[in-house]
């Protein structure tokens, strides 16, 4: 009875934890909508190739909401496939969803850059382009105490000593890095000499800029906004073609004499191998969503620019962008390989040191005998637990989580001296079933 109480307690505490999650899931679940939807799709899956919370995830979730509001498709789900700046999700779309006319992948400039930067084996050209949806422009800013008051002065310093101008921004190969490279190139300096300092997102670059650690910062406007408004940062150029509405004080980079324009666009793509009808249905779905009043309100609320572009024009834009970004990323990448000025310590220095010292310490650990080996440890129960672990890995994809988890539970219980395997199996089964239900319905994480 005791162990079932334990299982019950666990399930109860977990159920309590899950409560808001599950109510949220219910709210988001498709209402029994009429299947006679506008474009003839009973369900759509929006793949956000990032963890929940980022820009792509946000776009996917806003699209889901708008599609359900307008009842454009029977149901819309968001699936997160995070990893490697979205390229894991792209690879999934290309290999596992071929010919699937009910899947859209959210992507954008960052993914295009990452594919080129990481030398990824998959490419955006392998997917079916549907439409560009939203965009955000980039801002170049300097700390208030900086001697630079416009792009010209910054570029003059750059021409004098390219390594002396450090650029702080987001991940390498991302939009911020690309813009810095474009500006350096437009200044007539070899972009290989861009002294770009990549920070991980979420304000690290802003902190470095505020602290005067880097010469200039590059980022989407929203990240700099509070500091530009409070006067601690000075925006000296925006990457749009014309001054932005509401931000007319900030001059464009173009008007200061440097032909650099960049938009951090986000778009949707479909799987490869679609026929014309499948493609048309998805294009219609996205167009209707993007034309709705609700969508416009969403864009205003989130401060995104509407940059809807579809069909042949979107394909032409993608081709241009691929060439332009490919050229600059190729040259920036050359720098990382060990150019004269950039990254004095290469990417293998630290791992080399770590590997060498680990080997030394491991050898030391293996060669020394402990003075007082612990007494009384037994190997049999450990082997039983290990057998349970192996069984779980082997079984989980074949027989599913519930079976594999029950086997694991029973193995561990026997290792700890339980001899009532039938009762253990029942308790394990109940526990695993509870975990399965909780993860699948409470968290939206499907266990096999």
């Amino acid at each position: 009875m005791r162990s079932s109480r334990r299982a019950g307690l666990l399930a109860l505490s977990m159920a309590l934890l899950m409560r808001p999650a599950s109510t949220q899931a219910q709210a988001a679940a498709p209402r029994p909508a009429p299947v006679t939807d506008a474009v003839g799709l009973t369900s759509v899956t929006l793949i956000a190739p990032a963890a929940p919370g980022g820009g792509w995830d946000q776009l996917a979730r806003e699209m889901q909401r708008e599609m359900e509001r307008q009842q454009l498709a029977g149901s819309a789900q968001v699936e997160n496939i995070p990893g490697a700046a979205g390229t894991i999700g792209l690879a999934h779309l290309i290999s596992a969803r071929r010919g699937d006319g009910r899947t859209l992948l959210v992507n954008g400039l960052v993914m295009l850059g990452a594919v080129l930067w990481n030398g990824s084996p998959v490419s955006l050209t392998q997917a079916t382009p549907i439409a560009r949806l939203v965009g955000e422009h980039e801002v170049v800013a300097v700390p208030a105490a900086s001697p630079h008051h416009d792009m010209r002065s910054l570029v003059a310093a750059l021409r004098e000593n390219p390594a002396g101008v450090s650029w702080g921004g987001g991940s390498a190969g991302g939009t911020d890095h690309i813009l810095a490279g474009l500006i350096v190139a437009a200044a007539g300096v070899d972009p290989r000499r861009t002294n770009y300092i990549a920070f991980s997102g979420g304000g690290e670059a802003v902190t470095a800029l505020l602290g005067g650690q880097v010469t200039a910062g590059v980022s989407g406007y929203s990240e700099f906004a509070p500091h530009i408004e409070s006067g601690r940062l000075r925006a000296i150029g925006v990457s749009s073609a014309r001054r932005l509405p509401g931000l007319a004080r900030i001059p464009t980079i173009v008007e200061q004499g440097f032909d650099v324009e960049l938009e951090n666009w986000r778009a949707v793509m479909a799987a490869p191998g679609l026929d014309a009808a499948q493609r048309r249905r998805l294009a219609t779905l996205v167009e209707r969503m993007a034309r709705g009043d609700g969508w416009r309100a969403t864009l205003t609320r989130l401060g995104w620019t509407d940059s809807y572009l579809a069909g042949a024009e979107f394909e032409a834009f993608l081709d241009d962008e691929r060439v332009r970004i490919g050229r600059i990323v190729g040259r920036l990448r050359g720098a990382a390989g060990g150019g004269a000025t950039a990254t004095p310590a290469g990417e293998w220095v630290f791992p080399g040191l770590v590997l060498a010292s680990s080997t030394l310490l491991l050898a030391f650990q293996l060669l020394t005998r402990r003075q007082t080996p612990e007494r009384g440890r037994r190997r049999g129960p450990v082997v039983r637990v290990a057998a349970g672990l192996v069984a779980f890995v082997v079984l989980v994809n074949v027989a599913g989580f519930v079976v594999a988890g029950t086997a694991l539970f029973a193995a561990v219980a026997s290792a700890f001296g339980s001899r009532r395997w039938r009762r253990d199996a029942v308790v394990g089964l109940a526990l695993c079933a509870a975990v399965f239900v909780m993860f699948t319905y409470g968290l939206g994480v499907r266990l096999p």
Partner: protein
Amino acid sequence: MDTLSALAGGFAVALLPVHLFWALIGVTLGTAIGVLPGIGPALTVALLLPATYALDPTPAFIMFAGIYYGGMYGGSTTSILLNTPGESASIMSAVEGHLMARAGRGGAALATAAIGSFVAGTLATAALTVSAPVMVALALGFGPAEYFALAVLAFVAVSAVLGESRVDGFTSLLFGLLLGVIGIDPLTGVPRLTFGLPQLLDGVDVVIVAVGLFAVGEVLYAASRHHLDGAAVPARGSLWMTREEWARSWKAWLRGAAIGFPLGALPAGGAEIPTFLSYAVERRLARHPEQFGHGAIEGVAGPEAANNAAAAGTLVPLLALGLPTTATAAILLAAFQQYGLQPGPLLFQHEPRLVWGLIASLYVGNAMLLVLNLPLVGVWVKLLSIPRPALYGGILTLASAGAYSVNRSVFDVGLLYAIGGVGYLMRGRRIPLAPAIIGVILGPMAEQQLRRALAIAEGSAVAIVTRPLTAALLALAVVLLFAPALQRAWQARPPER
């Protein structure tokens, strides 16, 4: 004044019924987990990470903080009644506390632990409230060079000071650093140590490492020696402390708080050292030092106060600098990053509701914990009667489901078990686990900050080392590294004669 109004705003957030609810869940769960031997707050937060995707960050962190504090309270119950510390910071209270319990004064030991935890926790939270904004102001002047030096200091502190030998500490640290290197190098896009496996491109998730080392390793280790486990001593004796016990406790509480908070706030390895130190101080100052080793109440009151104060202290560098100094803080940092938040000076500006709500909820949580732990201590003691087979079976099953859910891949489950195997071997050799976790989290940060600092300094290492703050921090690290040797050299000289 600013701090007070910010704190008031924080209370407005923390006292919302929904947040009180999450705080209650957190402290309840935390106490339960602290009581159960073998699973600590780091593991619990790691397991709950995937479960909180759907939750807003504020309630999630209020719950996590409750688990953190609750674990500190609950750990003492197990130490006193079972002589098996629920987590490493309770080792010292196990010594005197268990002797008190055997002598029939378990009730008083539990009471002084709980009240001391409350007093010290509240004082330390107040110190956190005051010092965090100061630290934030300082932190704005920190550049990559300073962050690198801080990380080095944390590495040395956690490896050299914890555990029985520095070689063991560094072995553990390097295991963590090695795991941290795996994946695409963020500065160049070059995959490192991935062996061509696409699943490793994004690196090894810290949740996998923590759950592997703590949960899987612990279950394997417990399996090898469960036949040696003792039984719980019933909590006898009144919960009410006598006048004499009060008189002997209160100074120990205050001293424990004074030792715990600053040592917790330094990047020096968390709660273990302050509890050891507090125990030593109490023993030296006690009126009846001969009672130590036979159940002296000061030996419970001081270390218990110190460990709660240290728990609050570790939140200072975590929130103000983004620098974790304990395994639990490292997992909390991962939790922040899951929400796209970067702890550091800007967090206080961008997310005041979250930060101050979190700090205010620590006061609330402390008060809840006092109520939960004093009158309800009997309920927690019952948790100790859960049969081990079901407990460990449940832990592994949940750990496996949690690891799978991070990336929905069986590969991660295999990795979890492999790391668990390493954790088992480390436990067998008494190699501390915390340096490995710190290494996984801070290793990539240290490397990138160093390379950034070098790029900013146009490749000159001298320019980095001559920055005054950087130089001071690195010098401190060197001193810590050689402190035991220096001390030995000092003592080797015959003082008498």
